[in-house]
């Protein structure tokens, strides 16, 4: 048994949120650099150069890299040997987010779905908790913008559609999104599970570093083939036509029902902001 005060978690969330709002992940920055160097479309290259210049400006001036500082998505893997004490975990997470968005001069982008009245402090965060082995806590923090979130889709495919059906669903989602989600995008894909877990897997997939592949060779094959076909669409940076429409495709999987093949495609814009910490 290890006692952890939720005040420590609150502070961690605060620091992760502050850093994420201003900085790209290193693998994303490297992928953008590479994309800019290889891009042959003139307007798309102008877009990529602007994006790189923006990343530098945001870092130098410590201001949000994108004004959509997102909904705060927190995935917490809590060891079952951990005893949490202090304020309620959910309150600790929300308090960390609230402080970070105020102190960082981040935009507050959370509102009531019906009245559209803004909660004015970017809470509540989206909090996923999983109980895992051990006595530590692994925290993933992802500020998720909605220009890209809006372009995400969930398919309930037939098992007979198989791998080809999965790849087609991924490519179709990016094609239908077109210029709207701020391409070049990073594509998170959930394969299997149930309706709800499939969408969560897709979200988890975009927390994996750009450029990495699934450990399963057949799944990694889906990632490579989907990326190839997406970049053959020619949408390019901002929809200005070009070689790089996606920086990567990341798939996560789970066993599913014999009758189904759920596939969720969660679109992340080129501004991949994601922090990982352990306590």
């Amino acid at each position, binding site marked *: 048994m290890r006692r952890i005060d939720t005040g420590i978690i609150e502070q961690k969330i605060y620091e992760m949120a502050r850093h994420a709002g201003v900085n790209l992940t290193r693998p994303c920055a490297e992928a953008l650099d590479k994309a800019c160097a290889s891009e042959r479309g003139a307007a798309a290259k102008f877009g990529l150069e602007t994006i790189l210049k923006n990343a530098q400006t945001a870092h130098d001036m410590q*201001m949000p890299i*994108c*004004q959509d500082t997102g909904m705060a998505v927190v995935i917490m893997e809590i060891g079952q040997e951990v005893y949490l004490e202090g304020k309620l975990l959910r309150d600790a997470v929300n308090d960390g987010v609230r402080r970070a968005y105020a102190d960082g001069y981040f935009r507050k982008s959370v509102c009531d779905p019906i009245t559209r009245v803004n909660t004015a402090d970017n809470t509540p965060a989206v909090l996923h908790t999983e109980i895992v082995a051990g006595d530590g806590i692994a925290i993933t923090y992802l500020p998720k913008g909605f220009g890209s979130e809006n372009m995400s889709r969930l398919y309930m495919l037939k098992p007979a559609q198989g791998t080809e059906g999965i790849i087609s669903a991924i490519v179709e989602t990016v094609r239908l999104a*077109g210029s*709207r989600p701020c391409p070049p995008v990073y594509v998170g894909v959930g394969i299997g599970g149930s309706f709800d877990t499939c969408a969560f897997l897709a979200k988890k997939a975009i927390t994996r570093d750009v450029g990495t592949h699934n450990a399963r060779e057949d799944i990694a094959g889906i990632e490579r083939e989907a990326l190839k076909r997406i970049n053959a669409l020619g949408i390019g940076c901002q929809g200005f036509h070009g070689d790089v429409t996606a920086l990567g495709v990341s798939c996560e999987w789970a066993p599913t029902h014999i009758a189904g093949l759920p596939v969720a495609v969660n679109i992340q814009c*080129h501004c991949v902001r994601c922090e990982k910490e352990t306590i």
Partner: protein
Amino acid sequence: MKKLVLPLSSGDIMGLTAGESVLISGVILTARDCAHKRMTEYIKEGKELPFEIKGSVIYYAGPCPAKPGMASGSCGPTTSARMDVFAPALLDMGLCGMIGKGEMSDEVREAIKRNTGVYFAAIGGAGALYGNAIKSSECIAFADLLSEAVYRLEVEDFPAVVAYDCHGGSIY
């Protein structure tokens, strides 16, 4: 790169071709989802809008709060397609053009042609860069909408690409 100073004359607009990169300077007004919904309610009820639409350029954006000593926080474009339902009526009322990101509907393109307007694509995700191109910012309407309120921005050398020109051309 072509430099544009707002307000644009119809001659300026007719000289723009989809795909060309421009630097925009002058006054623009921010408005996004909630502000458009409210503008539409005003128009429906026959109430006068609290700002001039005729000749204006609307920037689809909701800024971050400004840090002390700065005119604006990060302020890149939002997805324009969500304003598809509002744009044609505003263009018919004399709106000169819009700045946003991504494709808009055929109805918007038609309204741009019909009214000799223009649609510029700013680079989505470049919020810090655009925030720094803003020289002054003042909330002029719907302050209760917070980041979705209408802000009057003075901008200098705002990088954008002509997305839809008045001749029917499109970069997409």
